[in-house]
């Protein structure tokens, strides 16, 4: 049918199918600002304005939109300077989003901009509540909404010509003398923010190729089954189907989907396609067709005959004698102590000191059991990949990945191609959070391209994400701690049963970090400081559930929930102040990281001293920000309320101390290359993978600082395995530290060449006294030469050379960031309903390179952690089918239900990095849940030991407490 649409003020004719959504038609017409986030409109990233109101373009037929005014983000504004042509420039909202740091991955930004525009068009002077409501239709997984809200306030005040709005929720606390950096430490605009604010085609799916096929996967409906036969005849006969691949059609190569350095520290237990399925959502067949609709139709026509096998659906059952075995394939390759006959993907046994002796020296031994749930990364851009053969018969994989170099290396044998014939391109990424530290779907598109010789795109739906991608490892944890009456910890033990699901990707390393980071925080006091007694044992088992994998925090949040709840329980039992008790036992600067002597992610351990610990200042700042001294133990505050059913509301306050790591020592390597251009600008090429965190900008800032130029003169590009140096990718909190050091070293080499060539031009004798500043090389006597002149001279005029350098860096340390995280809650004692009113996080962050992006990391991390604490959970029925398949049931916090967030950076100076940085992106995940759990104890005196903290759990705990109280009173 033919329709006419008014889009951004222009009438256009379209020929569409009656069922085509507006989303489909607009994307085909090149409006790439509209993104796919989910099938049901809950993400809102497909927002357009229809007659001025934000709606989901994926939930309206194109035909329905005829006769209405459609506005997309493309209409908002343009980059002002287009060579000889100037435009009216960017919209004030776009500018405000760019300048306030409201854009992280940028996948939801066009939608947020349109929602904000709709608001300001009707209400030029909105309150924060109005803005939060306006943004509530668009999920953001990166920012925590704080900065987008600020951006709208800024834009609104500018559009009204009012007093500029200024934020006051964040604080920087330098602990060292003031530095004189020009670029480092200053809020800088993200290098990709301008294009993202315009909704430019920056992401993997924003590409069209002639002859592109659309891929779909047939997923298993059974948790455990062997495939007897697959009949693809009817599906294959469907017009428009290019190819159907089953396990019989492709090479049987065992590998691991984990995106990690060689050798993979885990078992090899996965095939692209197998004759056995191990979870509901496991792969059965791949289809490539001329359209998504045809591919979906074909999937339904494939007939599979399954021999059903008994499933193992929970981790405790997996270890029982006679339990069904998931991995009976002969190709299975063990790593360390994995044992498929026992459904054991990994086993960890770490003893530091003499734990039994430590227990024998304790006055009290306190033991408790805890549990953490399976949750999903839920990046709003799903997994998506485009593959094609280039003119040189090299396979190009354009993919939304955190690990482009690992994708290339791991897939080479799977595809039977040498590494040199694979090129991996990483465009902008719409969030990853660890979910894209996985070679999850690249092989599927690649197999289909090899089979058809045609470009193939595969984009997971939201349901595909929930049933067939990765998640955080759920764990059952037993804690046992020996304590003296004065609060000295004499021994601390954590025993973990971790569920890796059907495959062992990240099994060992995630669970290893559960102990490695959390159990290192409390080493004890007195003699125990020199010789702490710590035990960490873990079994990581296979079950017939979707595989677990990497998720921001990488096992550490799973460790801090039990540890910090346990510390609170101990403090309460012994009548100790919870903060004094914790601080008495925490690790201090100059002490060995206790685990560094015994464990290093499955590799050789090397002892490591912790240089800086800013925890004391974090506690001080955090207490001030949340009003700890006024609220803790203040009974009148606990019953303070502003609610209609006020007598049932109790307030509480809680704290958790946490630590994380920064990179994996002696393993993580990052490379960088820098070259000087004719105009004195520089190309910085890094293999590091900016997944929305702003790492390209941060790396650029470090280069700019060394080279004495504004950030504008550094053109950062990441990543393409053909062009950029190797980098292991974006994980393990390593980019700023590891890749950043590589950048600094490359910049120093370039700076050296600039000084030498400047000395020649200036006829100065000692080049090493030349200062680089403001695009100039300045000799001690004040004479200077501009970079443009140096560049022209070296490239064109005299002793021509390309000033450039490559450097790489491997860490020898993993300096931990530390943090104090506080929560204030209101609990309804009649229903168990909990509302988190405020979250405060004070982080020992090292030197912050870009406060704007760094605060965004903290706010976004706290928000994800809030979901982990209260509402995010993946549950399966008795047949292994998922309860959560969409964003209705898997609830993510929206802008209008957020607590107040306060972030504080305590800037210690880490001596092992040229600028003194530590990592901050993962640590916000660690302490929110236990701080909330502890605040609930403070509010109503009940112990919640499992995540998420649902109203029913709180209510049941209260009921149990009250009935015990009654029993006790009766006995008395």
């Amino acid at each position: 049918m033919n329709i006419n649409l008014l889009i951004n003020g222009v009438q256009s004719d379209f020929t569409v199918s009656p069922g085509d959504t507006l989303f489909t038609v607009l994307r085909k017409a090149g409006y790439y600002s509209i993104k796919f986030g989910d099938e049901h409109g809950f993400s809102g990233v497909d927002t357009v304005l229809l007659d001025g109101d934000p709606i989901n373009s994926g939930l309206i037929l194109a035909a329905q939109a005829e006769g209405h005014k459609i506005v997309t983000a493309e209409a908002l504004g343009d980059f002002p300077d287009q060579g000889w042509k100037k435009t009216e420039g960017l919209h004030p909202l776009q500018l405000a989003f760019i300048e306030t740091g409201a854009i992280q991955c940028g996948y939801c930004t066009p939608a947020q901009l349109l929602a904000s525009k709709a608001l300001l068009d009707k209400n030029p002077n909105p309150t924060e509540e109005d803005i939060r409501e306006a943004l509530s239709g668009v999920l953001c997984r990166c920012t925590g909404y704080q900065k987008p809200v600020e951006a709208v306030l800024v834009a609104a005040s500018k559009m009204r010509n009012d007093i500029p709005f200024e934020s006051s929720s964040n604080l920087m606390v330098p602990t060292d003398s003031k530095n004189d950096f020009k670029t480092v430490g200053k809020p800088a605009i993200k290098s990709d923010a301008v294009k993202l604010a315009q909704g430019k085609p920056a992401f993997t799916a924003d590409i069209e190729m002639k002859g592109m096929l659309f891929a779909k996967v047939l997923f298993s409906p059974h948790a455990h089954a062997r495939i007897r036969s697959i009949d693809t005849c009817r599906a294959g006969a469907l017009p428009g189907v290019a190819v159907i691949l089953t396990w019989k059609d492709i090479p049987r190569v065992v590998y691991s989907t984990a995106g990690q350095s060689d050798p993979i520290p885990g078992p090899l237990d996965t095939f692209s396609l197998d004759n056995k399925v191990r979870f509901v959502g496991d792969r059965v067949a791949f289809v490539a067709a001329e359209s998504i609709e045809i591919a979906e139709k074909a999937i339904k026509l494939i007939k599979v005959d399954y021999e059903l096998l008994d499933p193992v659906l929970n981790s405790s059952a997996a270890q029982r004698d006679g339990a069904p075995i998931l991995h009976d394939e002969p190709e299975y390759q063990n790593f360390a102590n994995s044992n498929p006959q026992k459904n054991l993907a990994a086993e960890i046994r770490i003893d530091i000191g003499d734990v039994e002796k430590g227990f024998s020296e304790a006055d009290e031994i306190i033991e408790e059991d805890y549990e953490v749930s399976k949750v999903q990364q839920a990046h709003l851009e799903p997994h998506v990949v485009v593959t094609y053969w280039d003119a040189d018969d090299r396979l190009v994989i354009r993919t939304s990945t955190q690990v482009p170099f690992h994708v290339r290396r791991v897939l080479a044998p799977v595809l039977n191609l040498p590494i040199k014939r694979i090129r991996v391109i990483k465009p902008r990424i719409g969030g990853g959070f660890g979910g894209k530290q996985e070679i999850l779907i690249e092989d599927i598109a690649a197999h289909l391209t090899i089979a058809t010789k045609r470009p193939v795109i595969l984009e997971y739906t939201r349901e595909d994400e929930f049933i067939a991608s990765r998640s955080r490892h759920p764990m059952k944890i037993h804690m046992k701690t020996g304590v003296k009456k004065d609060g000295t910890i004499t021994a601390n033990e954590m025993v973990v049963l971790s569920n890796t699901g059907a495959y062992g990707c990240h099994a060992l390393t995630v669970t290893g970090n559960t102990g490695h980071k959390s159990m290192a925080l409390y080493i004890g006091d007195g003699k125990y400081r020199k010789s702490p007694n710590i035990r960490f044992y873990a079994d990581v088992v296979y079950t017939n559930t979707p595989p677990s994998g990497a998720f921001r925090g990488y096992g550490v949040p799973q460790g801090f929930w039990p540890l910090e709840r346990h510390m609170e329980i101990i403090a309460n039992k012994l009548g100790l102040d919870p903060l004094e008790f914790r601080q008495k036992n925490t690790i201090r600067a100059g002490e060995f990281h206790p685990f560094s002597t015994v464990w290093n992610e499955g590799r050789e351990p090397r002892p490591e001293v912790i240089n800086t610990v800013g925890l004391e200042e974090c506690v001080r700042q955090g207490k001030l920000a949340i009003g700890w001294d006024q609220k803790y133990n203040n009974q009148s505050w606990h019953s303070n309320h502003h609610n209609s059913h006020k007598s049932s509301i109790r307030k509480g306050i809680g704290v958790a101390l946490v630590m994380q790591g920064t990179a994996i020592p002696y393993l993580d390597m990052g490379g960088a290359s820098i070259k000087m251009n004719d105009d004195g600008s520089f190309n910085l090429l890094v293999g590091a993978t900016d997944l929305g965190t702003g790492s390209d900008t941060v790396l650029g800032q470090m280069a700019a600082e060394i080279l004495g130029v504004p950030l504008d003169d550094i053109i950062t590009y990441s990543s393409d395995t053909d062009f950029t140096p190797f980098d292991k990718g974006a994980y393990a909190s390593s980019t700023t530290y590891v890749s950043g050091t590589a950048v600094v070293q490359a910049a120093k080499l370039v700076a050296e060449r600039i000084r030498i060539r400047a000395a020649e031009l200036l006829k100065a004798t000692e080049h090493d006294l030349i200062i680089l500043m403001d695009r100039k090389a300045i000799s001690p006597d004040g004479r200077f030469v501009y970079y443009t002149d140096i560049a022209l001279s070296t490239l064109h005029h005299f002793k021509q050379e390309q000033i450039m350098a490559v450097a790489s860096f491997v860490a020898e340390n993993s300096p931990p960031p530390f943090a104090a995280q506080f929560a204030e809650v209101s609990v309804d004692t009649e229903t168990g309903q909990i509302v988190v009113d405020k979250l405060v996080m004070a982080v020992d962050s090292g030197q912050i390179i870009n406060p704007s992006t760094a605060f965004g990391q903290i706010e976004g991390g706290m928000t994800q952690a809030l979901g982990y604490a209260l509402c995010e959970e993946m549950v399966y029925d008795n047949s292994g089918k998922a309860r959560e398949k969409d964003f209705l049931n898997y609830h993510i916090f929206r802008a209008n239900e957020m607590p107040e967030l306060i972030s504080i950076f305590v800037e210690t100076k880490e001596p092992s990095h040229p600028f003194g940085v530590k990592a901050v992106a993962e640590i916000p995940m660690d302490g929110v849940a236990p701080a909330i759990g502890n605040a609930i104890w403070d509010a109503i005196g009940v112990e919640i030991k499992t995540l998420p903290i649902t109203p029913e759990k709180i209510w049941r705990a209260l009921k149990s407490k009250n009935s015990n109280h009654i029993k006790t009173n009766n006995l008395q």
Partner: protein
Amino acid sequence: MIKKYYRPQSLPDAFLLLNKPNTIPLAGGTYITTEINSEFNVVDLQDLGLDKVVVQNQKIEIGSTTKLQQLHQNQHIPEFFRTAIKLEAPLNIRNSASLGGLLVTCDGRSPVATSLLALDARIILDPDREEILISNFFSFRSSITRKRLITSIILPSLQNFSFAYVARTPFDRPIVSTAMSMWMNGRSRLALGGYGAQPLLVIDGQILDDISLAARSAFSNAEDEWASAYYRSEMAGVLATRCLKIIKNKFGKQ
């Protein structure tokens, strides 16, 4: 999969089209666009003028294609019903989803459906303008809407209304919700939501001495993957009492 799209300009034309095989009405589209498992034709109702909210003789007549957000912003809609509308879906969806569409597709977790049940809404089905009690509508909605169209929803009179709920977060889908209306003559209606295929009417008549007991009994078997029956039952009692208290406190002096 949608095979044909029609956009009639009058109700009679719409009914003619709806009489064609496999043809269903399209209001907001938020549900139909996600339905990919069958083939059908759609009749877009947007040009039929069914999106008006009219207040007359103390009754509110809401056109069936009225968007949820339009309803949320309407000053004649009771405050607590507006809360329920906001809980139903995020803003973008509320800007598209219609009240009529919601009634056809919702389940018992729907805060709006629970509220409408307590409000004793009437469903007007055309072409014969049959008025159906909402409690009857939920039980037979798939059969009684065949070849017919919900053209409006009537809230019988302005009444005292309250809504209470428990959820994991402030705007998550409620695990348990209660909605209560009370008229000047003392008649009350209490509905429970958050569970099952449709909301549940607990009381229609004079208020009971122990409203909590009635609510608890009604949800005594309301167990699913989101909550135990024990919890739901107890919460139904607590929230029902709360609703009553709110009405008494807020509207008691009227």
